């Protein structure tokens, strides 16, 4: 315990500093009132380029990413590097899509993607579907942030649940108090720490290990010894489609997550978003370098901590002790850095968990308030009531995440997060395509969503988790073993795997198109579109861009629907 004393002291000191900032944030850029959803939930919609850069960066690059992506490379090799093309693809998409969402939201006062869907397709049902999908997909994501903190705590030898409960209680308190301003302010500290740690790591650690060549040689040697044909420092032939579809599918999923929408809507004009789309890839570079830490851990001979359980295949074969891959990176830091700097690195991971957890809980709470509470429970809610409902919902969401991690197997949250990415993709036709075209019928979108959900669950259900041993592949779990779906399951004669979310969203689109055509042919009435073309590129300064009175009903144009 004593060897970790310095690390724990530095860790706690930084954590306390950040918590203080979280509470102070309520006074930062002080609003006239916090009892309004625009203030609590979107920081007054006034964030400029710098704050937005830190906020979105803090939002998208989570502690789980920092721990899990290198762990993937450590375990499987090149396939884990998908995180890089994923973040390369995401910004041009965001540039193109979320700018339109920003404009239409600022003309009509939307707070959530479901608000937009409701007005665009005139369908509260579709909005409810989008809102519930968003909440369900976000909750396990919050839970996973705790997995990142836990990995750090395990490494420094802290056992038991008390520290995590305390950390989350502090997080809940300052989010309740300061709203979106808290993570925005803390994100500065988080990113500064992360940058320092990663830059130090990618310069210092390879030098200590004998250079990049030695690092990759060690990784090659490890994968050459492994009997698994799916690993290696290059992609196996059958894994290339999975690599590309996972990168592309994850990029599409990312901007549909309510928390990324929250970050984007909080910026003050379109120029802010555009400057950020050009500047945010700096984080991608960081993520790419960080991913390579997984190989450094191989070269350094890092061994992940055992969980205490034993890996047993479904046929009863004992494979060996189960290890927690997420501890690899904290252990590498512990091994390579001086104690005080390892403490800084651990604090960076833990604080990195708090920023996205706060934003995600705020985004989920906004969905609840706008699309469930106000729509179905209290139609005449005042802004103060809305803000209060959101604050309480954010507490409930965080409590749920905490219980999920402490009471259930963390594996459950990891499975749910996997499913979350697939199900949030099912809102793509309504939210993503809806920003460009009004062609789809609301009934078609609901049907497509249902079909995509069913397909997504079925596909994931049929992905087993296997371990390749010297005696051949053994099945560890029959279901939810990953997102790489074998096309051979559908009767194709191939070993190629595809990202399950990608197939599910294709099913969704086909059904949405067919049902739309059928409903049009049958003459079923469509909803009214409350938005109009110029709303989608209005910028700050336009007389129509203002914050709508939040307790006025969403405006509906009394005109015949045109197809």
């Amino acid at each position: 315990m004593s060897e970790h004393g310095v690390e724990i002291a530095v860790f706690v000191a930084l954590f306390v500093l950040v918590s203080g900032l979280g509470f102070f944030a309520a006074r930062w850029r002080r609003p006239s009132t916090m009892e309004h959803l625009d203030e609590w939930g979107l920081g007054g919609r006034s964030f400029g380029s710098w704050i937005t850069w830190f906020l979105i960066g803090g939002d998208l690059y989570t502690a789980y990413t920092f721990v899990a992506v290198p762990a993937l490379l450590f375990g499987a090799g090149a396939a884990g590097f998908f995180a890089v093309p994923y973040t390369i693809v995401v910004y041009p998409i965001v540039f193109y899509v979320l700018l339109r969402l920003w404009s239409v939201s600022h003309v009509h006062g939307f707070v959530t993607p479901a608000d937009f869907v409701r007005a665009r397709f005139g369908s509260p049902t579709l909005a409810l579907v989008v809102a519930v999908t968003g909440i369900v997909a976000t909750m396990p994501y919050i839970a996973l942030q705790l997995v990142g903190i836990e990995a750090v705590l395990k490494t420094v030898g802290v056992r038991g649940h008390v520290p995590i409960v305390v950390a989350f209680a502090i997080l809940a308190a300052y989010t309740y108090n300061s709203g979106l301003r808290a993570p925005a302010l803390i994100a500065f500290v988080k990113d500064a720490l992360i940058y320092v740690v990663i830059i130090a790591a990618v310069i210092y650690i390879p030098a200590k290990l004998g250079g990049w060549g030695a690092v990759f040689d060690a990784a090659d040697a490890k994968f050459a010894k492994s009997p698994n044909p799916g690993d290696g420092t290059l992609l196996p032939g059958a894994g290339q489609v999975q690599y590309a579809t996972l990168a592309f599918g994850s990029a599409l999923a990312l901007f549909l997550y309510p928390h990324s929408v929250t970050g984007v809507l909080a910026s003050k004009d379109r120029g802010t978003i555009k400057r950020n789309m050009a500047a945010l890839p700096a984080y991608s570079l960081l993520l790419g370098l960080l991913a390579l830490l997984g190989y450094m851990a191989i070269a350094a001979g890092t061994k992940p901590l055992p969980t205490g359980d034993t890996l047993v295949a479904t046929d009863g074969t004992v494979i060996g002790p189960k290890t927690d891959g997420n501890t690899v990176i904290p252990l590498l830091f512990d091994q390579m850095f001086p104690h005080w700097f390892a403490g800084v690195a651990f604090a960076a991971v833990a604080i990195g968990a708090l920023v996205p957890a706060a934003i995600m809980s705020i985004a989920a709470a906004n969905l609840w308030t706008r699309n469930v509470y106000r729509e179905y429970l209290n139609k005449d809610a005042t802004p103060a009531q809305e803000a209060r409902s959101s604050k309480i919902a954010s507490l409930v969401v965080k409590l749920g995440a905490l219980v999920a991690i402490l009471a259930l197997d963390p594996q459950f949250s990891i499975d749910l997060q996997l499913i979350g990415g697939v199900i949030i993709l099912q809102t793509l036709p309504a939210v993503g395509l809806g920003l460009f075209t009004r062609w789809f019928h609301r009934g078609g979108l609901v049907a497509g969503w249902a079909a995509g959900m069913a397909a997504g669950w079925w596909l994931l259900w049929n992905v087993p988790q296997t371990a390749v041993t010297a005696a051949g592949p053994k099945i560890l779990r029959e279901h939810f073993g990953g997102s790489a779906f074998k096309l051979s399951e559908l009767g194709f004669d191939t070993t190629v795997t595809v990202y399950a979310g990608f197939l599910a969203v294709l099913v969704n689109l086909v059904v949405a198109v067919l049902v739309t055509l059928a409903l049009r042919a049958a003459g079923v009435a469509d909803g009214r579109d409350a938005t109009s073309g110029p709303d989608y590129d209005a910028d700050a300064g336009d007389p129509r861009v203002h914050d709508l009175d939040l307790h006025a009903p969403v405006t509906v144009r009394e005109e015949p629907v045109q197809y």
Partner: protein
Amino acid sequence: MTDVPDDVPAGRRDRSTTGLPTGWLLLLPLLLVVYPPLYNRTDPELFGIPFFYWYQLAVIPVSVVCTTVVYFTGRRTRRGSTR
């Protein structure tokens, strides 16, 4: 927005993502990574890093250049077209 008809010239609009000659640049980074066989090899290495890794890292600055060019041409177009 019943009080503002569609045909009223809006105060400030921004068409930089619609109908811009440089808009296709946003597709370039996507095309560079969407086909893994293009870069799934070891050679040539750079500082001991296999091609697979440094190639993808190198696409990141390319994507920055693309979004930046689209951003600046968008600004010019908008200024030029304001009444």
